[in-house]
């Protein structure tokens, strides 16, 4: 991986390179949010005196407020920056936990086969049949909408896909001669799974993890949009978009900007993912 290969990559897939840069920027924004934000995202200022006249929030984009403010006078740019932090945090953590649960179950069910496989597969059928957003809403309502309940909801919705994916990978590896040989030699089951099967799944696990992050981010945004996600005053891209609905006519930037920020992230990850998959494993699609 030297400079020449990188340049070749850029020349061959300029779009993917841009996408990569964008994703990296988002990560930086998420990590350094307090430094990048221009204002305190929670500071309220409902009216201002400008030249003796009283004007009410929301204030349009200006030198002082890059993206304008919401109806409480809170700086939108700062809120969006922190919103990105929340989105990425939830996306990565929730997807990570989904992976843990899904991989665990996928390994067991793929390897065991028989009744256990049947039962777990039917359970995934059941979970996958309930529309995801509905299931997520139900879970957050059970645990009272908050950051933790959102993460939990995304895990509940996300694990079945992962389990199935890992299972099918395990099935194809299981019949591999090497594995059969090791089994015949009397190796313990857990050892087989951990030392021989799991490593061969890592590729697909990593891809599934990364490609699942935009989905998790969208669920968080969707839940927050409908008021069942992150609670105020913490900013979330979804809740900012929702708050801006009433102002579409007079302050359209309020809802549109956070949406673009969200969409851009999802789009970039998707493009990046598409390119990577095209290169390494077209059969994944």
């Amino acid at each position, binding site marked *: 991986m030297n400079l020449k290969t990188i340049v070749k990559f850029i020349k061959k897939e300029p779009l993917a390179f841009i996408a990569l840069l964008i994703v990296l920027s988002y990560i930086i924004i998420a990590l350094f949010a307090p430094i990048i934000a221009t204002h305190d995202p929670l*500071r*309220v200022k409902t009216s201002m005196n400008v030249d003796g006249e009283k004007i009410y929030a929301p204030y349009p984009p200006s030198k002082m407020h890059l993206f304008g403010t919401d109806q409480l006078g809170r700086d939108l740019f700062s809120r969006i920056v922190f919103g990105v932090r929340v989105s990425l945090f939830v996306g990565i953590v929730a997807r990570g936990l989904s992976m843990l649960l899904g991989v665990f179950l996928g390994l067991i069910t793929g390897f065991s086969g028989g009744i256990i496989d049947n039962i777990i597969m039917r359970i995934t059928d059941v979970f996958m049949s309930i529309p995801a957003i509905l299931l997520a809403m139900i879970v957050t309502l059970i645990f009272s909408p908050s950051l933790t309940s959102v993460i939990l909801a995304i895990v509940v919705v996300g694990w079945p896909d992962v389990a199935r994916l890992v299972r099918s990978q395990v099935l194809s590896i299981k019949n591999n001669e090497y594995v059969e040989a090791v089994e015949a030699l009397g190796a313990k089951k857990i050892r087989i799974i951990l030392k021989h099967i799991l490593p061969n799944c890592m590729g697909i696990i990593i891809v599934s993890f990364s490609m699942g992050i935009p989905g998790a981010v969208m669920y968080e945004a969707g839940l927050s949009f409908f008021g069942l996600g992150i*609670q105020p*005053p913490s900013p979330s891209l979804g809740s900012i978009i929702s708050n801006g609905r*009433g102002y579409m006519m007079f*302050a359209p930037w309020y809802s549109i900007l956070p949406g673009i920020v969200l969409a851009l992230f999802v789009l970039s990850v998707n493009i990046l993912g598409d390119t990577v998959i095209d290169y390494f494993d077209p059969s994944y699609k």
Partner: protein
Amino acid sequence: MRRYSILILLLLVFSLVFSSVVVAEGNYGGEFTGFSSTDPKSLDPAALGSWDQAVMAANVLEGLARLSPSGQSIEPGIAKSWEVSDDGLVWTFDLREDAYFHNDENITAEDVKYSFERVINPETRSPQAWLFNKVVGYSEMRNGEAAEVSGIRVADDYTLEIELVEPLTPFVSMLASPGAAVVSKTAVEEYGDQFGQNVVSAGPFKLTNWEQNLELEMSAFEDYWAGRPYLDTLKFRFIHDENTRIIELLSGNIDWAWVTPAHHQGLTNNSVYKDSIYRVNTLHVAYFIVNMNEGPFGNNLKLRQAISYALNRESVIDSLQGRANRAIGIFPPGFMGHDQKATAYEYNPEKAKELLAEAGYPDGLPETYTVISLPWANLIKILEIYQQNLRDVGINIELKPVQQGEYMSMIGEGNFDLAYGYRVADYADPDSFVYPLLHSDSIDGGGNVAFYSNDKIDNLIEEGRLETDEQERKNIYEEINNMVQEELPYISTTHNIWVDVMNPDVRNWQPSAMDIHMFHRVWLAE
């Protein structure tokens, strides 16, 4: 000859004056489309539980008395007059003989007795039964001991007597609420369970069509005792989203919308609509409800005072572009008992911190407390401002918006430390605030959601109900108001100002201070 010309001249003048009077009266006809945020499911007076229902119901229902359009006073309804005995216990209602139900049945005192007893009857499970809880025989029927209420007596076809357990000055105001409307016994028996969607009462409009979850339609009741209303048809479309209503108004699909904070500036500057924006000071108060049974808020006065000083009510009013009044106590301007001189709790974070220290928390409250509220977006925005205010002085609160059903449940069970709530007057009398909110009798299910109990206030409230002299009553309610401001079981914040916008062709619109908007005097210019 001259006498004839004078006569002709007089006739001409007379007819000119007469015709202008007729023209000024208003045009009959036309269709008006209003809104409601949800499908009310039922307009049965016995089943009314929410504001939405009351708005539509008031146009279809009619009782002994009715509210004036402004909501500030009551007018005769089915009863053309009433009087009370000297001891204040027996009210006699003299009914009109020309009042009819929507199914053309004549309304008699028997019908009124039937309607009231239906609400009181525990089998109906009506949330409006409390309207009658001072009537003789009420408890007996509620307990199942009696099949009728002895205090409601039919003296003759058009005379009804109601005897009370004790004098109650606001009694007739209470009878003007939609819950005390009169319904047709034949219709109730005919429709049974479906009566709520086929309500037959005596209001200016009668129910004609109901498309579930879409809209409700009413048409003018020709035989309404005060003469049919101007409008031919009155529709209510169920549009939950307030922004959608404005867009529909601007597109000409509906004729009425509540003005949202987002659209306020735009509409007031809009050349087409700026003259058809109406405002009224609603008989409303919003407050933080303190669960007086729970610490630390319930038993620490200084803490409550600290909270009150920390709240920046002006900032909230700004966020509403001036569409609210600062609350000083619980009575809004226009209500007897409103007293500008009570303790005001001006925004003063420094004082708040001092009081907090005096209350035993020099470094702020160690724990985070939850404030439950209804989930309306605009309300949450207001609470975010207060949340920030409180955080600035060291009190951390978490907002927990919950849906109506759960909110009622938690409030009813006392399952909260702090809650944000509001009250709109149920009847045009200050008693409608204090009796439910503050009297210890109202604690289990009566509306005293703060679980507040104070003998002195109980006595004052009872005096207010008995007292007939206006000035005396004013003093009593002011005293109650000021005590509430001192004790702070309810930390009041603001009084709403209702602002709506109408289709510019609409005439004679008066929004109600009690949120019970009535359309019987509204007409449309061509």
